[in-house]
């Protein structure tokens, strides 16, 4: 496949891995303990496991799977609110496919749908507007979630709805923002990370400079990375190179997509529609200040939280779940007490088992073959 296979070339990967093996030898810390690199984005977690990168890299490199799966980090109380909304008479709830399976305290949207709620999967929030135009007698709500990657399209949808004066569309915003989240991880006392792979698609929107504080203040190297296996290997090489040379900088491996200043039009749409919430609850991480966004007063008519009354009850994470510790890199997914036993992709207990991009789901699905089990491929 043109423009994809080039980034999956096994020969080039081999060369990069040899380079990486050489670099690791020059990093003093690697002689004492593994180098811990956090891939912030769930898309990166997916690539690591899908291509088996963890088996190809030297054992001195360990990935700490970050919080960047927006479906996973949604707290149960918010899902309950969404289901309560979906179950109101006359409401059509629309959302992305992934979000249908995330469970609240009792059920998920798929189950609510089976019980009679009108829940529809869309591929773009603009599809929700199409449904709203087609059903003026119904209230169409879009369950919006995601980082800055999906935020612009939701913001554009709200702008479009206002322009059309659509009265029967509203947004239930669960969007979150990446920078405060990374900051919260860096501030946590048990944090021992050596470097970061920055999220490629978020950065396409926000640009490079918002990450400056990571290098300047926290003295950690970060490389913004693309999602193909060669992208990731190159980005890992770049982080290691910084570590070997004792540098801490923000570098951009994903230059074919990410520009220094980000996407002005997307940022403008976000700016117009959204403002920072004082705090937002995360599954597994607790409340993080300034990490969520809500709809501005000027667009109140399109805010489902203002339009409908919601239960708005905070529900604690199941006590047996250790998602928080996994997210902070304190333990590996398969070291969690309930991993693969009571918490599986069929019956996800913790957030990280829900989406294919969640660290635990990826681990379960692709990952937990031990290195010594790998046998050479025979044909």
């Amino acid at each position, binding site marked *: 496949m043109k423009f994809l296979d080039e980034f999956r070339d096994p020969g080039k990967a081999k060369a990069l891995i040899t380079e990486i093996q050489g670099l690791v030898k020059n990093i003093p810390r690697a002689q004492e303990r593994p180098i811990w690199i956090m891939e912030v984005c769930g898309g990166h977690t997916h690539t690591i496991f899908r291509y088996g990168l963890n088996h190809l890299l030297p054992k001195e490199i360990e990935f700490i799977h970050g919080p960047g799966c927006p479906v996973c980090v949604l707290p149960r109380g918010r899902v309950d609110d969404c289901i309560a909304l979906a179950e109101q008479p006359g409401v059509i709830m629309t959302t992305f496919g992934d979000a249908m399976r995330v469970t609240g305290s009792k059920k998920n949207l798929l189950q609510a749908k089976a019980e009679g709620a009108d829940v529809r999967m869309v591929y773009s929030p603009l599809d929700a507007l199409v449904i709203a135009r087609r059903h003026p007698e119904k209230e169409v709500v879009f369950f919006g979630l*995601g980082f800055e990657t999906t935020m612009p399209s939701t913001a554009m949808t709200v702008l479009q709805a206002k322009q059309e004066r659509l009265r029967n569309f509203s947004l239930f915003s669960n969007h979150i923002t990446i920078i405060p989240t990374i900051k919260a991880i860096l501030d946590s006392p048990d944090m021992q990370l050596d470097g970061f792979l920055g999220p490629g698609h978020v950065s396409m929107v926000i640009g490079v400079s918002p990450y400056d504080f990571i290098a300047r203040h926290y003295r950690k190297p970060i490389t913004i990375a693309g999602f193909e296996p060669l992208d990731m290997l190159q980005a890992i090489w770049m982080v290691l190179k910084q570590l070997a040379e004792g540098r801490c900088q923000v570098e951009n491996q994903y230059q074919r997509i990410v520009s220094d200043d980000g996407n002005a039009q997307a940022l403008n749409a976000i700016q117009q529609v959204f403002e920072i919430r004082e705090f937002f609850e995360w599954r597994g991480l607790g409340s993080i200040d300034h990490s969520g966004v809500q709809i501005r007063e000027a667009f109140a008519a399109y805010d489902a939280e203002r339009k409908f009354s919601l239960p708005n009850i905070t529900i604690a994470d199941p006590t047996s779940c250790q998602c928080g510790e996994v997210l902070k890199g304190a333990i590996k997914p398969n070291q969690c007490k309930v991993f693969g036993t009571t918490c599986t992709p069929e019956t996800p207990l913790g957030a990280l088992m829900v989406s294919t991009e969640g660290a635990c789901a990826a681990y379960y*699905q692709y990952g937990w073959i031990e290195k010594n089990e790998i046998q050479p*491929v025979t*044909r």
Partner: protein
Amino acid sequence: MLPLLSSHTESDSPPVSLPARFHGQRVTLVHGGGGKAMRDLIEHVFIQTFQHPLAAAMEDQARLSLPELGNLGSQLAMTTDTFVVHPLFFPGGNIGELAVNGTVNDLAMCGARPLYLSCAVVIEEGLAIETLFSLAQSMKAAADYAGIGIVTGDTKVVERGAADKLFINTTGIGVIPNGIAISGHRAQPGDVVITNGYLGDHGVAILLARNELALKATIESDTQPLHGLVEAMLTCCKDIHCLRDATRGGLATVLNELAQASHVSIQVNESALPIRESVRGACEILGLDPLYLANEGVLAAIVPPEEAANLLQVMRNHPAGRQSAIIGQVKEAQAGRVTLATIFGGVRILDMLVGEQLPRIC
């Protein structure tokens, strides 16, 4: 062909046309009421189209000759499947064709020669009678192509909203020739895994036909009967260990079923998998894995290693097996597990599909 039993399914019979009084008409609850209207509909849409003497007798059951069946083998195979696909028509096929091929293939996967089919329909009121007629004709064409007779059936009509346009159930009966012992339990370490065609075509064709994705590509469903291919395979190698058609859940699911049933592990070689560029592209965009997408004309065969090369040649010479490829190997370790050796040289688990594949959000 089947000299004894299917001489009546000749495809050179005169084409049937729908009487003018049905043109522009829709199925109503009256057509399911058991009265004159129902008989009229069944006779002109189904019986006359299927043109099988056993159906034309309009008894409550088809009566099959035991001695004739017994001449073909000593074991009868029976299977049933219900088809609920939306939309009814899609690139490369329609629900009628699918309903015949799907059941024919389920019979073929034990080496059976498919002989008789039933056709039970649940119709949502409001379906255009011409649509129903055209689907019945597709069923007849598919049945002729497969050399199988549609010999009995049932028609129900339900209120609008109680079904989605049309559901079809087909039950099939076939005879397993003596000396064949294909079973999900027979995979052995050292065996070789072979498939016959491109993976994921049907799944992507259906997704695109729903028109919800604003994606344009010309990908056709692979719906086809596989018993001819299986017959050719069995002529070459009577000792095929396992056969499954990789329908819902795709190739990955089928291989997991076989690995579990046989208490072996299977390693699939990613670079050997036959997948169309367009299907790979659509999957990339939608966040789907072609290994879990439905196929309607793809089988996975597990065969003794010494037979693999000859078998592959025979399969490639058959119209339903042009893209045949050896895609993996059966191993002893870690019984019940399927792994994928990636193009990249890594290895990952290829697990059963959990729920439905849902597109990722970003």
